């Protein structure tokens, strides 16, 4: 059992539902108890969809458990087919139905419907949402794309090249965007525009807004753009193995990554990237370079989310905005290796966990100036009084905005710059607060005034150290408490007061540095002198 305040991903059948809801003529029959229809409102409310997701639930109740739930499932499949006349169907079980073991795949097959019916095995007690989505996309593509086994992948590729007519554009598919994906709608528009501006024809975008017959056309394209590896990598790998279609590995988030993506795509499409690269207006790059952004240098940032967005965000933070990445991690265990590799670039150890409490503890230990994370990190940041911006799912309704707001491509880079800088206190205010602490309006405890709030965040340093004490494991808690109280008595009263003069957003770092300095130098009583010795030792 795992104690979970917040979960980063839903169960795997939500992933399957995201694939079904992305497509236009696919239906999903889900064996599940009454109440699991809550998932509909993820799509209708959070995603503000105009239509119900194409999902029929068996919604069994306790009284049904004594009876024939298998029959109930078969009736639901039949009714769903009669009513919705889909072009293909997927069937599966939710976590509770998995326990009663009715075998949806076998039951649906026995009905011999005149359409492809694809069974899903999604182990709810081991796997999660993204895995479910990835697996579902893979099985649907495998189930709906015709494969001639007598032809090798290489022959497929040669046939594609041979059948190409003079002057015909290179072609690709965009794979991975889904309903409820973080900014997927606008990313697709941005990347599609970019590809088309390069002279590449986009054949199939899937699963978002794709039909069953669209999927069958996937193998005809020259290559695949794997936009969200968490969803599309498995499918792209299979397409590569089966049809010889190469796929992109670079996620075009940030100016640099977008340029690298353009070069990668150009290579796959046999095009020259130079004209595309020359034509871009790199506004985010200029904004970061402009002197107003100097104060952003080395601001300490903690990054958490799905693997792709975390790796991309770290690169943007460190190389394009000039932050210092002090921590990064992901809940995508499937991509732990990639995230560990990325973490090495910043000389930090990757935090691979789906345990919200573990992330909370890490953030409170690091006391960063900015958290880039998911909706869940917003809870943590609120508690710790740290500015926060959202870079990855899970997200809530406010992160499915009406306005155009991609994360990818050059416009995506502009969006990132604005979004990440916004929660930070602006330069002039930061200077003035360092100089004058006791202003009745702009106090050091106050939230940045451009955010328009009068109430101070709950982030006095005292509170922060309490928080690091409140770790999830009771044993650690007691140990932490002991250390913490002995550490507190280290501080002379006047030194503690001097520490209070340091603005709150760097106070945590100053306290930690000073205590570390004291421990390393065998100092048992921290005075004002120790504080400044430490400052001199570590720099600002």
């Amino acid at each position, binding site marked *: 059992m795992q104690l979970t305040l917040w979960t980063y991903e*839903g169960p795997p059948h939500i992933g399957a539902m995201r694939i079904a809801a992305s497509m236009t003529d696919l239906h999903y029959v889900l064996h599940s108890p009454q109440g699991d229809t809550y998932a509909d409102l993820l799509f209708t409310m959070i995603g503000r969809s105009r239509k119900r997701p194409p999902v029929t639930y068996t919604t069994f109740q306790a009284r049904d458990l004594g009876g024939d739930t298998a029959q109930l499932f078969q009736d*639901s499949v039949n009714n769903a087919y009669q009513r919705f006349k889909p072009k293909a169907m997927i069937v599966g079980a939710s976590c509770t139905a998995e326990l009663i073991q009715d075998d949806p795949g076998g039951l649906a097959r026995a009905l011999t419907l005149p359409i492809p019916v694809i069974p899903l095995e999604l182990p709810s007690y081991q796997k999660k949402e993204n895995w479910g989505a990835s697996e579902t996309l893979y099985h649907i593509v495998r189930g709906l794309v015709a494969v001639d086994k007598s032809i090798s992948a290489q022959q497929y590729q040669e046939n594609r090249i041979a059948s190409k007519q003079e002057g015909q554009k290179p072609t690709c598919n965009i794979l991975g965007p889904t309903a409820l994906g973080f900014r997927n709608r606008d990313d697709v528009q941005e990347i599609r525009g970019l590809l088309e501006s390069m002279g590449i024809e986009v054949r199939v975008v899937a699963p978002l807004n794709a039909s069953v017959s669209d999927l069958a056309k996937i193998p005809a394209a020259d290559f695949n753009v794997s936009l969200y590896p968490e969803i599309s990598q498995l499918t792209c790998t299979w397409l590569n193995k089966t049809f010889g279609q190469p796929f992109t590995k670079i996620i075009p988030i940030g100016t640099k990554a977008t340029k690298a993506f353009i070069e990668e795509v150009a290579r796959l499409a046999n095009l020259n990237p130079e004209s595309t690269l020359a034509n871009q207006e790199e506004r985010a790059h200029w904004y970061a370079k402009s002197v107003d952004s100097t104060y952003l240098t080395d601001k300490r940032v903690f990054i958490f989310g799905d693997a792709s967005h975390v790796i991309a965000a770290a690169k943007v933070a460190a190389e394009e905005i000039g932050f210092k990445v002090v921590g990064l991690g992901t809940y995508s265990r499937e991509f732990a290796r990639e995230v560990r590799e990325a973490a090495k670039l910043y000389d930090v150890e990757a935090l691979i966990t789906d345990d919200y409490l573990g992330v909370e503890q890490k953030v409170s230990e690091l006391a960063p100036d900015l958290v880039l994370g998911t909706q869940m990190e917003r809870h943590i940041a609120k508690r710790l009084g740290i500015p926060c911006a959202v870079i990855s799912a899970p997200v809530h309704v406010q992160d499915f905005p009406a306005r155009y707001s991609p994360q990818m491509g050059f416009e995506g880079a502009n969006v990132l710059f604005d979004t990440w800088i916004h929660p930070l206190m602006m330069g002039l205010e930061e200077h003035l607060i360092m100089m004058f602490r006791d202003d009745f309006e702009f106090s050091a405890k106050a939230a940045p005034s451009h955010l328009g709030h009068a109430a101070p965040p709950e982030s006095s340093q005292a509170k922060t150290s309490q928080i690091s004490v409140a770790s999830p494991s009771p044993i650690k808690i007691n140990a932490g408490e002991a250390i913490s109280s002995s550490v507190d008595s280290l501080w002379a009263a006047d030194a503690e007061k001097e520490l209070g003069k340091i603005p709150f957003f760097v106070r945590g770092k100053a306290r930690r540095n000073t205590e570390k300095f004291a421990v390393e130098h065998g100092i048992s009583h921290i005075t004002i002198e120790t504080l400044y010795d430490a400052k001199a030792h570590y720099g600002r």
Partner: protein
Amino acid sequence: MVELPQDHLNKSGKSIPIYKERGQREVFCGLTGIIWLHRKIQDAFFLVVGSRTCAHLVQSAAGVMIFAEPRFATAIIDDRDLAGLADAHEELDRVVKALLARRPDIKMLFLVGSCPSEVIKLDLSRAAQRLSKEFVSKCRILSYSGSGIETTFTQGEDACLASLINDTPKQVAEKDKNLLIVGCLPDVVEDQFKRLFTELGIENVSFFPPKNSQQSIEIHGNTQYLLAQPFLAETARLIEERGAKRIAAPFPFGIEGTTAWLKAAAHLWGITSEHFEGVTQGKIERAKKSLARYLPALENKTISFFPDSQLEIPLARFLSRECGMRVLEIGTPYLHKQHLECELDLLPEGSKIVEGQDLERQLDRCRADQPDIVVCGLGLANPLEAEGITTKWSIELVFSPVHGYEQAADLAELFARPLNRSMKLVA
């Protein structure tokens, strides 16, 4: 499309037939009750014992608010628990201890059962007893089921309150007569009712559930209780087991409902009708004046209810009798005939009541009826709006102060607002 039989026509009160439907149900499970219960009982924590689906449900519903310290969580069952590799009870004990160490301020912990925990027959009541012994005097530990297979939406509150009653020591009957108001009410409504009862001269009034876990609950042979909510079947049964008697009344929605509800208690306390009218008349006049503002938007408009909270019948009664609306279909997830007897008597003749749900067929009927406004859950609301049908999302009715005189107009406004809005956005 399959029509319902038409034998409700010309029927009224108890003779209105209740059509029963079975099929796909688009409703919440009882876990959702946590969203408002955790705010009502301020020192309580709700620990769902379930799957990732359960955790996902609760956070999808509540997670739009940013919590520094949420008062609910999930102990997610994993495959080790299912395979019997880990002793589920030991695991649960470990999780509860970790939780209580993190949150020493918690005075009451609810272990909330879910579909998976019910199907694998994890005995949470035994776990609660065991843990209660360990944390005695620090934290009360109770259990109830909010599973979808057993409970629908507001029935989660019923199950929660029932567990509280079960945990309250039995009391001797020799105490003085008291009045207990049962069902979660917003604080402002509770205070209004308290003042009203005081003015009427009923002094010994308490509300259940209390705002914090340490408040004692008075239930014994001399207790009379009034249900403030129509979905409290099990809670009422347990209260009656302790000798308390239910005061039959309609529910306090709208002016008529509130008056009848108060009057039922006043009658038992021997309060004269002169005094009753003296206390209520001014409030009734004020509520009428306030309500009148919304009548033009509502009068003669048609409305249908999808099943959701069991509030549907009292609300249909209020909207038809006090707001002049025409009710086409009243869907309800479950209908407790005894508790709703007074409500059924007040429904307009020929009311069409459907207990249970077969979603697609109900949607067919709704599309054929084309009501001016449809009360439905959030899974259906936007899709129906996209089809051009105005909706009122039903969950808000559980989350808003809607009981009593002062809220009668607010309640009407909840239905007038979407209608006004669709007029506004068209123009």
